[in-house]
């Protein structure tokens, strides 16, 4: 984890409350402790984001996951202030984002952030290339230059040959590629994705997820990714924040969520996951027993269980999990089978 670098985005005690006299809710200890229904009855307010804090490291893919109504879309809109947070602090590259005036905010949106939307938000009256160039156009970039830039990004997302089409002539997956290209065209530091693939078919969704992974390798941008799909979160996210009713329940890497769920909600959430594809050996290794032969094969603790399965089952001795020449633990058939057989145990 690149956690030792100073964070790109830093969020502390962030609240977003909708309703009359919203700002009173986070201030009052009593009101802020109320549940959704009681808060509605008492004040007519809904708290979409409650007391959320996290840091995002440069180059990280940070996933916010939750069911609908959990406040995840509101949270991401608070990060670029499409929605004004009610209270808390929000720092971007050391700058207090909440102090930015309208002009500075526009500048940041033009140069530093961009966003990909669930329903694409393309301009139906413009061709693909003009859609991609829109962000550059409103910065005042000349036509030749912005078209050149747009064509580069169009090639990057695999849309070459479609630049003259109109959005409604493209499939959903292609339209989202246009949305992606538009977001990349401005060469931003941070990309926000608001459930970008929820409206797509499963197969196309998988393609697009791979596309995002590829782009992340190629351009290395910091990404904040909103989703309600756990497998998507596990696939893309360096770290995952789970939200429920506006509150953060747990933040961690995929194997941390699966290996050590913070509460029953998360446990229930991750119960259907194929654990052997998420957990690494460090979650299943045990201390060596006196009778264990300690000359089996060696594997790193970050090897996924399903990758280690064959090695462990083929070896008649437990394998050793080593780091820097130090024995961390051992993994035998019993531990491996415990994970693989437990897939159905949760249900």
């Amino acid at each position, binding site marked *: 984890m690149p956690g030792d670098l100073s964070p790109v985005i830093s969020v502390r005690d962030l609240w977003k409350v909708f309703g009359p006299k919203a700002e009173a809710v986070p201030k009052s200890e009593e009101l802020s402790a109320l549940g959704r229904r009681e808060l*509605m009855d008492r004040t007519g307010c809904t708290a979409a984001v409650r007391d959320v804090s996290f840091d995002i490291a440069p180059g990280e893919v940070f996933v916010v996951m939750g069911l609908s109504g959990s406040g995840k879309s509101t949270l991401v809109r608070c990060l670029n202030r499409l929605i004004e947070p009610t209270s808390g602090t929000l720092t971007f590259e050391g700058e207090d984002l909440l102090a930015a005036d309208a002009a500075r905010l526009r500048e940041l949106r033009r140069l530093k952030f961009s966003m990909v939307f669930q329903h694409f938000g393309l301009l139906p009256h413009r061709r693909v290339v003009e859609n991609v160039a829109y962000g550059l156009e409103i910065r005042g970039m000349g036509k030749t230059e912005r078209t050149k830039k747009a064509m580069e990004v169009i090639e990057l997302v695999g849309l070459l040959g479609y630049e003259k089409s109109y959005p409604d002539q493209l499939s959903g997956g292609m339209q989202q590629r246009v949305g992606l290209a538009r977001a990349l065209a401005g060469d931003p530091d941070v990309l926000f994705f608001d459930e970008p693939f929820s409206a797509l078919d499963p197969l196309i969704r998988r393609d697009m997820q791979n596309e995002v992974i590829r782009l992340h390798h190629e351009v290395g941008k910091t990404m904040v990714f909103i989703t309600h799909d756990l497998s998507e979160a596990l696939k893309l996210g360096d770290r995952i924040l789970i939200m429920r009713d506006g509150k953060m329940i747990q933040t961690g890497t995929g194997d941390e969520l699966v290996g050590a769920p913070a509460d029953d909600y998360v446990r229930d959430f991750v119960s259907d996951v194929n654990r052997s594809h998420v957990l690494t050996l460090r979650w299943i290794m045990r201390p060596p027993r006196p009778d264990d032969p300690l000359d089996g094969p060696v594997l790193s603790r970050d090897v996924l269980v399903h990758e280690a399965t064959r090695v462990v089952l083929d070896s008649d001795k437990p394998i050793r999990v080593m780091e820097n020449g130090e024995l961390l633990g051992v993994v035998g058939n019993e531990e491996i089978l415990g994970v693989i057989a437990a897939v159905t145990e949760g249900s």
Partner: protein
Amino acid sequence: MAVLEAAKTTRPPAAPPAATPTGPVWAAHRGAVVAGVIAVWVVLWALLRNRFTLTLDTASTTDLHLRINDVRDSIDAGRNSNPLFLYVFNEIRLVIDALTNAISGLIAQPAFGRPVPLLGWLGVVAVVMFVAWALGNGRVSLLAGAVFVFFGLQGLWTQAMDTLALTLAAVLVSLLIGIPLGVWAGLSDRVNRVLTPVLDFMQTMPTFVYLAPLTLFFLIGPASAVIATLIYAAPPAIRITAHGIRSVAPATVEASVALGSTPRQTLFRVLLPVARRTIVLGINQTIMAALSMVTIAALIDAPGLGQNVLKALQTLDVGTAFNAGMSIVLMAIVLDRVTTAMSERVEVARLMTPQAIARRPYLLGAGAVATLVCVYLSYTFANYAVFPTPEGTSLGYIGDDIAGAADAVKDWAQSNLTFFTQTWKDVSTAWFLDPVEHLLVESPWFVVVAVAVVLSLVIGNVRAAVTTAVCLAVVIGTGLWSDTMTTLAAVLVATVLTVLIGVLVGVWMGRSRGADRAIRPVLDAAQVMPSFVYLIPFVALFGATRFTAIVAAVVYSAPIAIKLVADGIRNVSATTVEAALSAGTSTLQMIRKVQLPMAREALVLATNQGLIYVLSMVVIGGLIGAGALGYDVVAGFRQSTYFGKGLAAGLAIVMLGVMLDRVTQAASGRTGGAKRR
């Protein structure tokens, strides 16, 4: 409204109600209560017949009417001294007159020191064709050219240009005011909330009634005509523009903001371009409304084709009226087709090949040069300036023939179809119109008021009942109770017929794609026609009677009612229909038990719109013998002694409109969400 509802639906559902809401006792037996009230009414009518009926002679006036005359006289006297007039009304009149005269001098009337307009007929035809081609397509350009030449052949060139000039002036002002207001209402919920009821009211008022008050402030003539037209034609532009702006997908706006657009960039590069097609549709509606109103404004001396129709109708000269009416219809068709082609231009431009796109500037340039040549010719040579009329004819090359043919058809109909038309007229009058009219006119006023208030309460709600009471009180105040009841009788009968036709045809169209495809274009065409011309064929068939006005009103309002019912039936969820079918429902059962009940809101809306359309047409029927309020208004235009009475009649019409609108609105609010238009 939509925003408010959205806000409501996003809230978590409230606790389930403790019990089903308990309404008043009568709510459960609405139909029986209505029948009971009417039965009591009939009994009271029989007992108290022809007493307390507040009848006022056609030729008589009340103190109120005379007092309004005095007010008019004092306004007339103060026109050049009262500061309100000096600095407001007169200024507006001068500006609008200047605009109208400029456009009129360009295409219609001698001006700028010339014996003829700047553009002669050839120039106008060339410009119209070029504009239609550049903004629309070749087809509508040819249509426009042919129709404009046809005006000349009809011998109505000048009148057609007068109408066009007034329409253009009114449309220009309407759009200048309407589009910015529409954009504002599209952007701001508050503005939208304030504007909506004002626009509702403007559109509910029958066109007829605001002519007279306007002449009070802006005198008789083009200025009043343009302002009247503005009142009628600007609301669609405002409404549809606002709707267009509001319909832009929120994600698109959000994406634009997220990319760092300023509000101005979002408005000009996202909202307006995306809403463009809808806005052009609004322009189309505005133009059609303007044309319709400009022809009616003939009543306050607006020049143009409306004058020809009006004069001919008053002398029952069907041939001449038909010739001029035809011009109006053709003008309507051209304006509609051209603006529709304009709105489709975006899609057409998309499909053009690169070669076609590259060629277009040259073609446009060549067209512009040809147009300029025609303009020059028409500016310089008399033959291209004034449409030539052959010797010995009064109406140009074919106008006389058209009028003659129409007269011949009328004569034939009157000698051969009399049996049918007369029988139909007599039977309908005796069986439907007369009973309703007797009941309304001959009952004591307090009985009618009581019945109306109770029915408003039962059909609508308490607010509707209060509105009814207030409206009827004002009607009594105008001194025109009896005339109002006569008009109301005609309106009610015509509305029942309209709704009947609406349900029959609408259900058919809603259930059959084929029927819909065949009938809808006819309805669209019918809705484009100005209300005025509807009277002509029915005068030919039935002569000048109140029955004629009712038939014209039914035909005029049927299209909107049919469309609303058809859409309502079509919108019944396919799943529900499928579920009913799989339960073994027969066709009749489907219509009666599934589709009509589920389209109930559409039915009520069709009744509401039908009423509004019928009312506006029934009062125009005052021109051709429908009598009552319409006649009072017309008499007010013609004779200065009846000015006050005409104005009072206008007020009574507005009250009638508000009452009928509110009651049906309340009824639709009861049956479901009260969405309008």
